[in-house]
């Protein structure tokens, strides 16, 4: 599903050159649930951003569904992200001025779908994460766990084949974290969604199919 070949990422300033990722090669199979662990600053989020086509590597190739992605232009990349990938972030990234249902509808705004279709899909996604009774609430009226469930609904509303989650339980207590993890596991098990999750929590990582450890930008396991 996702294939990374010799990925390197170097951040350069006028005086400093930082090697964020060093020759990472990785295959993520369709329907796999991969977790990535490592100390802060080891390049986990950078790797996830590269997989999500939010950032370009300095060197190497990325293939998603056997399609070379580095040559895609801005429009095609946006289209690719919109159709293939769902993102979940540690800090949720919900728009506080929009109701829950409008937040969930957001990815569909960039597709040719009707308002009715958008509303139906968003409502279905919210039902799936157990928030059908909160659709007209604003994010500021929700708890952290509920916000992350809204973010998950937003990630799955467009029925992507891949979900990239960057520390989705990082801001939550263990009970809430478990709740979110259960939702992700169910999405993986029932819908066959490929999930790559960055986490600091070994308990969460243990529940996934495979663990990738990074240290100083290099793959250690």
């Amino acid at each position: 599903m996702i294939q990374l070949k010799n990925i390197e990422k170097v951040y350069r300033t006028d005086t400093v050159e930082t090697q964020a990722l060093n020759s990472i090669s990785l295959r993520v199979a369709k329907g796999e649930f991969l977790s990535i662990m490592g100390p802060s600053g080891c390049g986990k989020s950078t790797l996830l951003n590269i997989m999500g086509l939010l950032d370009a590597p300095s060197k190497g190739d990325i293939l998603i569904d056997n399609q070379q992605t580095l040559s895609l232009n801005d429009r095609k990349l946006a289209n690719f992200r919109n159709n293939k990938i769902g993102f979940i972030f540690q800090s949720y990234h919900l728009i506080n001025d929009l109701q829950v249902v409008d937040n969930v509808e957001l990815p569909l705004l960039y597709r040719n779908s009707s308002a009715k279709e958008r509303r139906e899909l968003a409502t279905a996604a919210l039902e799936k994460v157990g928030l059908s009774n909160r659709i007209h609430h604003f994010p500021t009226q929700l708890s952290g766990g509920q916000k992350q469930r809204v973010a998950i609904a937003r990630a799955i509303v467009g029925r992507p084949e891949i979900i990239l989650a960057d520390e989705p339980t990082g801001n939550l207590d263990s009970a809430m974290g478990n709740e979110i993890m259960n939702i992700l596991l169910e999405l993986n098990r029932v819908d066959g969604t490929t999930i790559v999750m960055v986490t600091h929590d070994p308990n969460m990582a243990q529940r996934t199919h495979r663990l990738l450890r990074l240290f100083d930008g290099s793959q250690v396991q």
Partner: protein
Amino acid sequence: MLKHLFKLIWNKKKENFLLISEILISFMVIFAVFTLLVYNYQNYAVPKGFEEENVWSVDLGELNVSKNKDSVGVLHENLRNVLKNLPEVKAISYASANVPFSNSMFTSGTGYKGIRINVDVNRVEDDYKQVLGLSLLSGRWFSPEDNGLAKSTVILNEEAKERLFGKEDAIGKMISDGSSKVIGVIQNLKDKSDFKAPMPAIYTRIDTGKINQMNQILVRVAPGTTAAFEGKMYKMIASTIKSTNLEIKHLSDMKAEKNKETIIPMIIFFIVTGFLIINVALGIFGVLWYNINKRRAEIGLRRAIGATSSAVSTQLLGEALVIATFSLIIGSFFAVQFPLMKVFDLPTSVYLLAQFFAILFIYLLVVICALYPGKQAAAIYPAVALHEE
């Protein structure tokens, strides 16, 4: 997407209140500017109805003769003969003091079948038409056949004819309670300034009974007549009439002076408005700039979930236009009250055109102000913006 933008702006109405108010106030000021511009332009575009180039206005001042009308009449005839013998003089006409672009006014009431209007009254001679190059629309101009008639003959301008008779033919009709007969209709004369709408006017022949009040002459001279000739003519008139305060002015100079009365206040108004527009532009620019910096994470998110960089800048532009639309809807409500309540008695078309131009101007201003911040937003790198939060 439009519904989404409306929802987004509506849910942030408190934050956008100041900007909406600022654009609303600007719209009202720009509406006033365009009302003035459209009104003045419409007046400017109206045909002048006469040719002021090479026409001089001679103010005879206080005549140093007996007030006896015969003496004045003799003096006038002597002067006419002196001037007519000059090869540079093409035509002359005595007239009442309210010649084109003068500061004098002479208004009176007239009426026809219950319709009463105020008109500018111009006392003129038979050669007045030739001096100013007037265009006759119907009927005839004054001629010797009007001598000694029981009822006086008058000529109306188009405006007076429209107000008194509408579509009806005016020629041969009696006005002013049957005391005057209309013999002709001429094109309106824009004789107050290039920017003043023509008023209803009536032209009557100089009454010999009031000849001592006629101390103004309009002289048409040959094109290219020099200042040296003007000096020579001045001396000749002065020696003929022995006037103490004789004055010769060119109608084109008098027009320029009158035009200044409109142009100078307009320039001052435009300068003040210009500063306001700069303020508003900076306001819109600042708010959009601030929004982008405040909303970097949101912009990053939108990019992550499928927005292209152009979609992001289009969205910001769209938001600015939606905010402007809120202001313009409120502003238009106030603007339409002007023609409905006939606030300044201007034609409705002036207000509607001014409103249209003001709306267009505001949208253009918003687009210009949103372009650069929109471009900046499009350049936000999603991976960086999402990581900042």
